[in-house]
């Protein structure tokens, strides 16, 4: 497993905002079908790292590769735009605040990009939308507008929207953090389903229980560095590093409050 050629490869990622170093030389390799969780305190750079993967927040230095394509290639503006739009079709992203398109129905949210970018016919798009919405359990809301959905439902539609592009990797940035506690489970279930289908995923999360149950590997980040990484049993049960221990202890205390 470990000597397999990496699917997603982040090499020596560095990112600064002015003088503030947000990522300090981070490397991360994810194999095909692997599920990696990134945990860490607020401001540690988790989102920045995740958003560097599809070049939403470009790195200051370092490289990001998906299979044999470098994502963050330096190219003249026009060429870069063409390149990145192509690359991003392979990388699904799910946001904390869903970012569904409020002026479009659930169906249109899911079909907009595939129709526009892959030239699907209306029938093909309809079939695709049904297939994806079926998967996330939202087929009965296909004609709804986002404003009439609960947070959990919105997030499931957002996942269907990302899946409709048939991505090779899915990125989740605290997909359940904005949800009421009773709605978290329905989204977790969808993510577990993806895990069972061997979707490659990078998941930024504050939910240690969920991370432990679905992930192959956990990264603990603090102040822009990966402090410790390893299998979930190790990181959650028996971490070596004192910072990891402290973080988990604090986190547990908060969760039990």
């Amino acid at each position: 497993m470990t000597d397999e050629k990496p699917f997603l490869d982040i090499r020596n990622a560095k990112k600064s905002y002015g003088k503030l170093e947000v990522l300090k030389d981070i490397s991360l390799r994810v194999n095909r079908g692997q599920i990696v969780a990134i945990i860490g305190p607020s401001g540690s750079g988790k989102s920045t790292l995740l958003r560097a993967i599809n070049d939403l927040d470009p790195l200051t230095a370092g490289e990001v590769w998906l299979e044999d394509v470098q994502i963050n290639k330096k190219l003249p503006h026009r060429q870069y735009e063409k390149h990145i739009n192509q690359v991003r079709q392979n990388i699904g992203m799910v946001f904390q605040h869903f970012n569904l398109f409020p002026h479009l129905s659930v169906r249109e949210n899911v079909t907009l990009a595939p129709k526009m970018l892959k030239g699907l016919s209306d029938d093909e798009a309809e079939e695709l939308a049904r297939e994806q919405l079926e998967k996330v359990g939202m087929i009965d809301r296909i004609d709804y507008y986002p404003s009439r959905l609960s947070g959990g439902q919105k997030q499931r539609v957002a996942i269907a929207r990302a899946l409709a592009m048939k991505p090779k990797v899915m990125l989740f940035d605290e997909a359940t953090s904005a949800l009421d506690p009773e709605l978290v489970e329905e989204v977790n279930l969808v993510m577990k389903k993806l895990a069972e289908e061997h979707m490659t995923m990078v998941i930024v999360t504050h939910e240690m229980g969920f991370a432990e149950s679905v992930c192959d590997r956990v990264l603990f980040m603090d102040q822009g560095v990966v402090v410790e990484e390893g299998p979930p049993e190790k990181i959650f049960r028996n971490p070596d590093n004192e910072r990891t221990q402290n973080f988990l202890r604090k986190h547990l205390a908060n969760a039990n409050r």
Partner: protein
Amino acid sequence: MDVDLMMRVYPFFLKAAVVTIELSVLTTILGLIMGSLGAAARLSRFAALRWIGAAYVSVIRGTPALIQLFILYFGGPQIGIQLDAFSAGVIGLGVNIGAYMTETIRGAIIAIDKGQREAARTLGMSQVQSFRKVVLPQAARLMIRPLGVNINALIKGTALVAPISVIELTYTAQRYIGSTYKPFEMFLLAGVLYMVIIYVTGRGIAWLDRRARIV
């Protein structure tokens, strides 16, 4: 109050009201064009365009519309711009209101949560595609009301072309005062007609706004 006199002259005022409406419509169209260009410039990724957009807005908003109109109509011929009064009126007022509309349109666009654009971009949509299919349709709904405010101001602003002798409502009122010495009646008549135009426009905009609501 001389009601008889008002009854006798009101057909001429109606004709003048038509001119005011024409002025308003053409000014709105030009204003929307200038406003869209202005907003595009102000939001451009090229610094030079942003600067031009900002300069346009601050020059226009920093000087009286009447002075702008006078420069165009009276000063224009000196630098080779020869316009009839009506055209000068439309261009002067249109360029003027365009600066205000620039800010309205830009405001509506930047009010759309940046997560919307990000979501579109992460799906692989280009800048243009995400703007056209995701940002603009939402911004367009947001800008209907504030553009209505601009249009309301513009209709009242058409009175500014009276001094350059466009035969619209205000000019007509002044002319009849010259011959009748009844300013109260004449201005009242013009005022009522302005109100009707503004009321109908306002209702139209409210209707559009309601229809465009996101369900």
